């Protein structure tokens, strides 16, 4: 037993935290990671489906940006994902793990559809849009307000609570879908107000999604400014870093938690409004399409930096669009596209480890024998 202690082996690899890596270096590491991911993807493409990786990559690119129409679809998807990521971000900066984005979006969409169906022929279109907008934000906000109050007042775990709120939202929407189904017995709501287009967000020229993109640009800039330069944004950062410090300088932690979650849920509701009114014109239980969860990844990947989030959501949307394109053009299983996407994301997340830590390999083994 004692023998073991006399010759302590140096571990093969030791980790140490890097002092700050400068920007140029860290970005070149990230670029290298993407390159490495493409190489690994290429090998997999050749081995598994025996195709030229460059064909696949160019098809993916064309799938996302090949035509004006495709560019608009990509931009719309990018905008929606970005919007939801941005909605979650203030909560995350406060270390409030809001996993309820999906439900908050859905409830916003529900409120929007509700107004379209019941008020579609009663209000002029401008006012209707405004009512829908307000209703979506309020309902989304309430959906986040509930877990926030429980967290602030009684210290409940917000991850479980927000997650469960998703299921409540899904079941509620499922109920209303049966109630509103068109035609009866189809199990779908169908396009709402197809004839009158009441409550549809107008198209600008031929660029059908310009308004959606425009709204998201405004929210993105607004959120960036809010988090970085406003008093509220500062309070959020302090509460996220240390609640004791916040209390010490007189910030009311409960108030900040509740206020921020209303904002977070409200923007999710706003996203629900954009989806129903600006894009889908109908409601389904899968309307958020997992973006409430993908948004979490985007927000983390960008380390809660709003500007970096644009790049992250672009990457994810681009990969998604590309993946479905190669599925159709080459008759490949859609899952294959997801494999390629997964590998790229794995490399991008993985490189952060090497940016934060330095590896020291054991020197030659000669020293040990001595």
């Amino acid at each position, binding site marked *: *037993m*004692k023998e*073991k*202690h*006399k010759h*302590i082996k140096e571990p093969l690899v030791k980790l140490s935290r890097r002092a700050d890596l400068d920007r140029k270096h860290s970005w070149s590491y990230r670029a290298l990671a993407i390159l490495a991911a493409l190489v690994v993807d290429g090998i997999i493409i050749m081995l598994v489906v025996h195709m030229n990786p460059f064909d696949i990559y160019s098809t993916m690119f064309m799938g996302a940006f090949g035509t004006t129409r495709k560019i608009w679809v990509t931009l719309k998807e990018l905008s929606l994902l970005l919007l939801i990521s941005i909605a979650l971000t203030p909560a995350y900066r406060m270390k409030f793990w809001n996993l309820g984005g999906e439900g908050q979006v859905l409830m916003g969409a529900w409120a929007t559809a509700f107004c379209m169906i019941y008020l579609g022929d009663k209000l002029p279109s401008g006012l209707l849009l405004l009512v829908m907008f307000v209703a979506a934000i309020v309902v989304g906000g309430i959906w986040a307000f509930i877990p926030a109050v429980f967290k602030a007042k009684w210290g409940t775990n917000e991850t479980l609570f927000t997650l469960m709120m998703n299921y409540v939202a899904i079941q509620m929407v499922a109920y209303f879908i049966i109630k509103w189904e068109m035609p009866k017995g189809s199990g779908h709501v169908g396009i709402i107000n197809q004839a009158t287009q009441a409550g549809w967000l107008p198209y600008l020229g031929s660029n059908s999604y310009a308004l959606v993109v425009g709204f998201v640009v405004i929210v993105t800039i607004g959120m960036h400014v809010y988090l970085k*330069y*406003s*008093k*509220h*944004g*500062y*309070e959020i*950062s*302090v509460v996220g*870093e*240390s609640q*004791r*410090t916040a*209390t*010490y*300088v*007189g910030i009311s932690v409960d108030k900040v938690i509740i206020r921020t979650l209303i904002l977070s849920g409200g923007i999710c509701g706003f996203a629900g409004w954009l989806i129903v009114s600006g894009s889908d014109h109908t409601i389904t239980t899968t309307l958020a399409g997992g973006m409430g969860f993908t948004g979490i990844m985007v927000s983390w990947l960008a380390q809660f930096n709003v500007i970096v989030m644009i790049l992250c959501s672009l990457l994810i949307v681009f990969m998604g669009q590309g993946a479905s394109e190669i599925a159709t053009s080459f008759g490949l299983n859609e899952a294959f596209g997801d494999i390629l996407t997964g590998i790229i994301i794995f490399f991008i997340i993985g490189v952060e480890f090497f940016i934060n830590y330095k590896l020291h390999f054991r020197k030659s083994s000669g020293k040990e024998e001595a």
Partner: protein
Amino acid sequence: MSSPENREVAISLRNVTKTFGSIKANNNVSMDIYKGEILSLLGENGSGKTTLMNMLAGIYAPDGGQIFVNGEEAVIRSPQDAFDYQIGMIHQHFKLVDVFSAAENIILGMQGKLKLDKKAILKDIQETVDRYGFEIDLNKKIYEMSVSEKQTVEIIKVLYRGAQILILDEPTAVLTPQETEKLFFVLRAMKDHGRTIVIITHKLQEVLELSDRVAVLRKGEYIGEIETKEATESSLTEMMVGKKVELNIDRTDPVDVKDLVRVEHLTCLNKYGIKALDDVTFTIRAGEILGIAGIAGAGQKELLEAIAGLQKAEPGSSIMYRAIDNNDEIQLLGKDVNDIKNLGISLAFVPEDRLGMGLVGNMGMVGNMLLRSYNEGRGIFTREKEPRQLAEEIKDRLEVSTPNIYTPVRKLSGGNVQKVLVGREISLAPRVLMTAYAVRGLDINTSYTIYNILSEEKQKGVGVVYVGEDLDVLVELCDRILVLCEGKVSGIVDARTTTKEELGVMMTKYSGDHIAKINVAKLLENDEDEEAENEREA
């Protein structure tokens, strides 16, 4: 020092040194621990007791020196290594899994067969429990346990793993007198079974009551050892606090002293509902430094936080602030930080936990300057220019060494972190400046920078409160010293005429009752034990 011939050395430390940054936590410590003894490791806060023992337990590795176990040199790099040498340590903060039972925690991490035979294990553990006379339900979950029961589990865990040498870090700090007595009972039982016990402590009475031998550390240095039967409270105090050290702090006589904050009958409960402060009455005066002395956890934190509006007080308490200009008196209790600020009262507070409370570690100097002022001015945006200027100013004036004013402050050294915090607080132009352990962990130069700042503030007519642990500094720096003991004021003395020894005695004034209580409890308990034993035999 003569030691009996039949003593066998269990552990020897030779020239053990450990540094953290620029701080020498242990400097060339050489000492022996004998088999089958109860050794007290005595020293003030920050004297390096825990660090030294952590090196035996495999938490830290020494920077220099050697450790011998049973005469052979040992390299202890992990708690597992320590167990291989049959050394086990019970830390101040328990390391137990809350949702597991006592037995599950005890076997956690041990090698065993694939299938857990719970019955056999329970029987096995119960044997250990009975041998030393522990009182514990092995099936009880940790979250249902009192602090003392948790401690018992920790001790059994270490024993069950076959530790011959047990180190306990301030084991009585969290116990009631009765629980303390029970603990001492099992410790003596362990000694009778040939185990070696080291207890880390700064409570003199316990040392005298329990141990065979005392080893004393002071400021990281090994001072010496003494047989307990030859020791007295005063001889131990002298070893612990040392001879008078010349510090040469420039202390001016207070001028124009006025009452500033009158604290009366202040009683506060801690989160367990126990009195952290008990009927505390004193006055903070403008133009004076009021020192607060006491062993760790005597109520210092609660006292400062109550004045700062961060701690609730019990009915009957009062903290009156007297405005200097018009002599208006304002009740501070029941008001929070913002209320106090809005009344125009400028209270500066340098808390003990610098990065967890006083500052935001991930923000730079500029962001941290904003903490106190972000809400000033109209509009929804924070100001940019003022905090930046303030950060630059503090960086120059206090010579903060940082790459730039946006570098997160957690990356700065302890001394620089403290300069940022103190700099910000005095920039508030405070009327009252409260500091908790303002120089803990700082090197001599930075410490003097801080002392000078406090003296300057005093000369400006600020009421300064200095909570400290180094008695030399308290005596040299302050004008008056309030001594806290177990939440009560054991006296307020003139710093110019008092001595360290007097302060030391006052710091443990009420612990006297504590021992008396233990003795009574001991008598009662012995009776009960006998009864229980009679019953068992019957």
